């Protein structure tokens, strides 16, 4: 049904790829400089409370390149990147790529499941609230959204943890995989058991903004001329909501949901920290706290690509699904 002009798409993707490349180079350079400028001594942060000799400190200093100039260090980092390597993680003691692949896969399950759940429920709640604007149903949904948008994600996580893990004892309290240990020996069921609560937290937090967006969109559709005319043609209210309302807000809602990868990633960091879920979020916090610079920078790059991908998909959907914009294929 959807006919896509492949030449136009190729050009579009080509331009986007160039943009991404420039973006990555700049972000890589800036984040590297930021870390380098930090007054926090990476050697001390890495060693923590451990006591080491002067010689060992000097060796570590050389490892971090503290004896080179800032420009040299930036160029060094960029050329390493260009060669396709992100260096070695200091705390996991394996290549950064390997850590990221494993941790990111674990987080992806968490993110994808909660993204889908919050997408479906957020949309449905938004449609319900928008259709019933001004009624008690709308008010309940709006209040829920207001409260969730005003609560820190990690606190919601803590409350759910207290209720479901500590009080009811349905789920483990976490902390079962120590930071810095890469290989997991948990079974699928153990893993699923640990996934539910974080995914649930991330879902209910993620619902709020999509619900509000969908609600407002539907309300503006309800005021549109075509909604009026559909009413004037004698169609039933819920028929119009279904045939014209959802038709017109589904694409924008999906677009918004793809553009929320930024918040999704942020939420994951917090939720993983609360539930000790061994994913990319925990790795980020560990890398930041213990100055695992290569890993931290690797994560910055990966998360940028992740957010970019979401926005790109949103762009493509927006441009190629709407028949009005698709009509411009031929030029």
């Amino acid at each position, binding site marked *: 049904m959807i006919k896509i002009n492949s030449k136009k798409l190729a050009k579009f993707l080509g331009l986007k790829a160039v943009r991404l490349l420039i973006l990555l180079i700049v972000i890589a350079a800036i984040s590297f400089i930021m870390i380098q400028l930090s007054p926090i001594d990476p050697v001390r942060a890495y060693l923590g409370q451990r006591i080491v000799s002067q010689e060992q400190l000097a060796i570590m200093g050389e490892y971090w390149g503290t004896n080179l100039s800032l420009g040299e260090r930036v160029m060094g980092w960029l050329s390493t990147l260009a060669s396709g390597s992100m260096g070695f993680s200091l705390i996991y003691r394996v290549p950064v790529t390997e850590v990221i692949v494993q941790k990111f896969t674990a987080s992806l399950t968490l993110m994808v499941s909660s993204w889908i759940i919050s997408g479906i429920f957020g949309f449905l709640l938004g449609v319900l609230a928008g259709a019933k604007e*001004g009624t008690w149903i709308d008010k309940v949904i709006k209040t829920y959204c207001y409260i969730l948008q005003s609560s820190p994600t990690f606190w919601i996580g803590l409350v759910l943890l207290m209720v479901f893990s500590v009080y009811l004892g349905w789920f483990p309290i976490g902390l079962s995989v120590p930071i810095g240990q890469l290989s997991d020996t948990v079974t699928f069921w153990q893993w699923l058991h640990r996934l539910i609560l974080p995914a649930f937290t991330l879902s209910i937090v993620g619902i709020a903004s999509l619900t509000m967006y969908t609600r407002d969109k539907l309300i503006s559709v309800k*005021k*549109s*001329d*075509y909604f*009026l*005319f*559909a*009413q*004037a*043609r*004698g*169609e*039933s209210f819920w*028929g119009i909501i279904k*045939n*014209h309302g959802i*038709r*017109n807000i589904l694409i924008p809602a999906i677009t918004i949901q793809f553009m929320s990868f930024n918040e999704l990633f942020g939420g994951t960091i917090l939720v993983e920290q609360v539930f000790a879920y061994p994913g990319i979020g925990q790795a980020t916090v560990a890398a930041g706290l213990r100055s695992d610079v290569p890993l931290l920078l690797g994560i910055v790059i990966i998360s940028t690509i992740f957010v970019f991908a979401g926005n790109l998909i949103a762009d493509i959907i927006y441009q190629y699904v*709407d*028949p*009005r914009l698709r*009509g411009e294929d031929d030029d």
Partner: protein
Amino acid sequence: MGKLLEVNNLSISFTQYVQGLNRHDLKVISDLSLDIGESEIVAVLGSSGSGKSLLAHTILGILPYNAHVTGDVKFNGEILDQEKKEKIRGKEICLIPQSVNFLDPLMKVSQQAVGECKDDNERKEKKIRQREVFAKYGLDESVDDLYPFELSGGMARKVLLSTALLNDPDLLIADEPTPGLDSKSVEETIQDIRKLKDQGKGVLLITHEIDVALKTADRIAIFYSGYVIEINKVENFLNSDNLLHPYTKALVDALPHNGFKLTEGVQPLEEVSGCPYYENCPISSDKCANNKPELIEHDGAMIRCFNFNKAVSEEVVDEVVSEEVVDEVVSEGPVEESVSEEIAEEVNGEEANDGA
């Protein structure tokens, strides 16, 4: 013989909030009365933004929530409440909307014309009927699968018309069917509407183009500043001597050189205490400043003017009174300040009406 549609003393106002969240009531239509019989075309002629579409929306029960409505609408002698409006709209009363924006931009036009169906059988039947009506107006099958944005102006007009005619209504409300069309399409549209009359249907034609009203309608209702000031047969518009209201007369006299367009921006936007035309009226008297004329019947026409049957030459404009009123109108500065004044004026106006 009962009238097809009767609108009695309809008023519509909106509650608005302006900067600082001060409340402000905006009156758009005041005391509108109108009727349409079978096989009759009545045009409502008024400038843009004067509330003509709102009249159509009232009849169909699709006004926005913040609209406040008084007065009643009768269809075949029966008062239409919201429930009845919902039952008969799209069946006995159909709307031909203002523009292609009234079609869902993401749905093919035939699908919209067919509309909601209970089951596949009904869908098939309606689809056949839709093809018939579309074909009748010269829309071939390729049009069925177009999206609204792909229609040309003339085509869009025909699609909207056919969509409205699908259920064979008794009354059609055509809201500005001609703007933006080339002269050939305008002519076609006028003919199409005339044909509806020949089929026994009643038509409420809403327009701001006086020539379209003259060529199409049997009777014309003139809208001025939210009031219907005159309703007269179309023949009487050929000669301003046969018209009753000074505004209508001036309008018709000015026809050849103002390009058949209604002048905009001269109508007072704020509620005034007397006749809305007072400021521009060549035959006004003291009474007009603070009393509102009612819409009364005269010789088969409707007229809202105290002095319509006096000759113009007899009138002497009372300078003192008119200056006072001009002051009053001019002094209405920013909205915030004028709210209290406005209420005071409204009270005055009501008292005056009671007295009259």
